[in-house]
């Protein structure tokens, strides 16, 4: 009988504990997969009316029964994705999205959103307010890729994808592939937010535009937009972008065209690492020491001068070093010209020389203009490919 009493006591305790446990549990928000509009891409544009924005969602049309046009068998669960772009205009982002419930049969679900494309007009006007919702909502992720579109962002999401099934997917994959060129930054929402709340650091965001090739529209990701104070202030072309990426230690691969003794050679960056160190000279001037270490390989060469020949390699390396240094120098000058600290140099200085930072922080913009750069580039040769002579008859 004693055990029974104990058992009853325990049961009571269990029931009380469980009722508390489940009563306090606050995630009672179950929803079936087929009640969701799964958003894959977002475009934010400035609307015609002043102070209003247009948000376009790209929603996966998961191809219900009878709807699949591309002939995939019913319910087989194969990817037969089509998409649907739906736009709504209003004042605040959250409001606009809520209002979509009036026109959509399924609730908007942004956890799988992959890209946010910001239209140029809105970017120039400022993105801080428009991104508030996306940063705040716990549903959306912070690893969403951000783009700035030349023209309207919604047009990018309308472009027929080439290989992928959805334009937003196409965009993300293009961004990932072009990493090999290091000519556009890869920026997530989190990176952009970090830039937006920093006092000194300016953000860069890759630019996407529609490039017409033989009357076909293609999305093209290259170059970047510079955001200062939440507004887009300038564009960098792809060479300048790579120059900036060198300084930011974000170059991993890429190719250069180098002219050595009349021979044009493509030099591939195989591996790269860069270090940025602020230093204060005796006269109080701030110097940015940029050191780049890279491994390069020979991609191809047009001309007779054999760059694979060990005696000629130093010459080739020298020219490559010069090209890289020039690229960085150009980018640095450009950044100074538009007065945008896209390198995060201010934060770097604050961490390293807090006292100096206290002196300059109030007039950082002017200080930034006066900063000088010391660029050191050290590269090593890393292979010339399968052949070690150009395809010319040897000189004898």
């Amino acid at each position, binding site marked *: 009988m004693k055990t*029974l009493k104990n058992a009853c006591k325990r*049961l009571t305790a269990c029931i009380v504990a469980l009722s508390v446990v489940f009563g306090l549990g606050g995630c009672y928000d*179950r929803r079936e997969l087929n009640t*969701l509009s799964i958003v894959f891409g977002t475009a934010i544009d400035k609307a015609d009316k002043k102070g209003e924005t247009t948000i376009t969602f790209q929603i996966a049309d998961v191809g*219900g029964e009878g709807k699949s046009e591309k002939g995939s068998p019913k319910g*087989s*669960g194969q990817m037969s994705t089509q998409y649907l772009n739906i736009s709504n205009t209003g004042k605040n982002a959250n409001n606009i999205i809520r209002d979509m419930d009036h026109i959509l049969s399924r609730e908007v679900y942004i956890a799988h959103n992959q890209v946010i494309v910001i239209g140029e007009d809105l970017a120039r006007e400022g993105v801080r307010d428009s991104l508030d919702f996306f940063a705040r909502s716990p549903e959306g992720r912070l690893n969403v890729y951000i783009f700035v579109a030349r023209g309207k962002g919604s047009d990018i999401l309308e472009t027929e994808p080439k290989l992928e099934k959805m334009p937003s997917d196409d965009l993300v994959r293009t961004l990932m592939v072009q990493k090999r060129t290091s000519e556009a930054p890869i920026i997530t929402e989190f990176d952009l937010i970090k830039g937006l709340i920093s006092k000194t650091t300016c953000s860069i965001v890759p630019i996407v535009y529609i490039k017409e090739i033989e009357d076909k529209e293609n999305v093209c990701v290259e170059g970047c937009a510079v955001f200062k104070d939440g507004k887009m202030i300038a564009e960098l072309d792809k060479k300048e972008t790579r120059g900036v990426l060198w300084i930011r230690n974000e170059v991993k691969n890429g190719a250069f065209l180098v002219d050595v003794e009349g021979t044009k050679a493509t030099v591939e960056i195989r591996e790269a690492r860069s270090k940025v160190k602020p230093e204060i000279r005796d006269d109080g001037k701030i110097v940015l020491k940029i050191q780049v270490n890279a491994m390069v390989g020979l991609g191809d060469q047009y001309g007779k001068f054999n760059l694979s020949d060990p005696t000629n390699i130093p010459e080739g390396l020298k020219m490559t070093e010069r090209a890289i240094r020039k690229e960085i120098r150009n980018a640095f000058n450009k950044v100074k010209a538009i007065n945008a600290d896209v390198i995060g140099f201010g934060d770097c200085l604050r961490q390293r020389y807090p006292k100096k930072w206290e002196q300059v922080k109030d007039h950082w913009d002017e200080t930034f203009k006066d900063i000088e750069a010391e660029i050191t580039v050290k590269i090593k040769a890393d292979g010339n490919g399968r052949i070690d002579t150009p395809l010319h008859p040897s000189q004898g």
Partner: protein
Amino acid sequence: MFGFLYKKAKALFSKKGTDSKQEDFSQKQTPVSRTLADNIKTIREEMLLSCDVISREITIGKERSTRAAIIFIDGMADKKIINDNVLKPLMNISGFPISPGSTDRKTGIIKVIEQSVLAISNIAEVQNINEAISELLTGNTVLFVDGDDTALAISAKGFEKRSVDEPPSEAVIRGPRECFIEDIKTNTSLIRRKIKNQELRVETMTIGQRTRTVVSIAYISGVANAGLVETVKNRLKAISTDSILESGYIEQFIEDSPASIFSTIGYTEKPDVAAAKILEGRVAILVDGTPFVLTAPMLFAEYFQSAEDYYFRPYYATLLRIVRIIAAMTTILAPAIYVSVTTFHQELLPTGLLITMASAREGIPFPAFVECLIMIVTFEILREAGIRLPRTVGQALSIVGALVIGESAVAAGLIGAPMVIFVAITAVSSFVVPNLIEPIAVLRFIVLILGSMFGGYGITIAMLGALVHMASLNSFGFPYLSPTAPFDPGDSKDAIVRAPLWMMIKRPKSVGAADKKRRDKVVPPPTGENDGGEDENA
């Protein structure tokens, strides 16, 4: 309110306790009469004139001076033995020396018969009728001699029994193929043949007032914890029931936590497994009439051990154990995770998979939970049917089952394709740990229901609850989760990892063996080099 419930329950239980009539058959004592006819009559009446009670009256010796009778139950006695070793010597004996009326116990007729006439190895003297009847019921033959108040219980049992076969529920690739059978004598001999040690002790008792089932416990007295043996014996003695038909009855009467979904007593039908458990210091409980032998105490880790683990190389055995643990987790969690992820945590799915799943769920009329429930219940039905149905219609079932669970259900739009995969994985995984099927099936439903109501939070709570519950269990005083909790590094080499046998010097502490060591020191197997050297010298 709970107090009220408690009182009700108490009243209910106590009523049951007093209602059951405690008839003790051995209490009525009718002494054996000196008159043969009386004895036969009494026995026949006590046995309610059952037709299968056979009595055969004879006269002893060629002189035909003394009358006698044997009584046995048809089908339970070996007639050949009775004919050759009992009837023939009795009838053929010549010059029967003793006068029939002698009352001297030592030189009495019954003593002479017992000592020099019957060619039977196992004979017991019986003084009263009830004893005689219980001997009869166990299959022995009783011999009454006219004029003597002692009867002889002659052990000449012979009933139909199965031969030692392959274990149907614990098939092995490597290892002994023999299996316990329903006859307890054969079973004890199977264990004894594995452990030829005089310390292996088999103790026998009878449980069940009506079935009078023979139950034996087997242990090595120097190895098993004395307290454990005492506990097992006491619990067995305390059983008050009229019938024991299978070891499952015993299990439910003596287990520590009858309310738990987990079993705290292990069972096996392989003699090598039983022997291994006994050698680890456990106690085996053998029940007449079933090939399933209980072993106690049973720890949770034993679910994941298999006899083959010790016959294979340790690396593979360890891998297999990890696989078993993964399979057990899969079969508990897979349906719940599927439902909770698709209804609560869609963000956890890779984007590509989400589209696939969403398009598979398109047009399915039920919520994922109901969909899952349908499939799991269907599977349980098929499984149950597969066990019960006659072999001949098995093929029909497997075809229907494959169609129902597979293609057709999807094509009919009843369930989505991913669900089929999840249920299939769940089903297949559940067979990896066969002894765990019972608790797992229950746990799976609990986890599924909580998971579908509260998502990952519910699953966590359910699993946490199960863990807390398991941690609170003990089997004959030994913590259920040992050697993991409480952690014991020594025992851990036979929990998830199976260390090489030569490294396992000590018996598991978690079952409290009295003799802690299997041997004194680590003796690694001789290396090839040493062997070669010795060969050359020789």
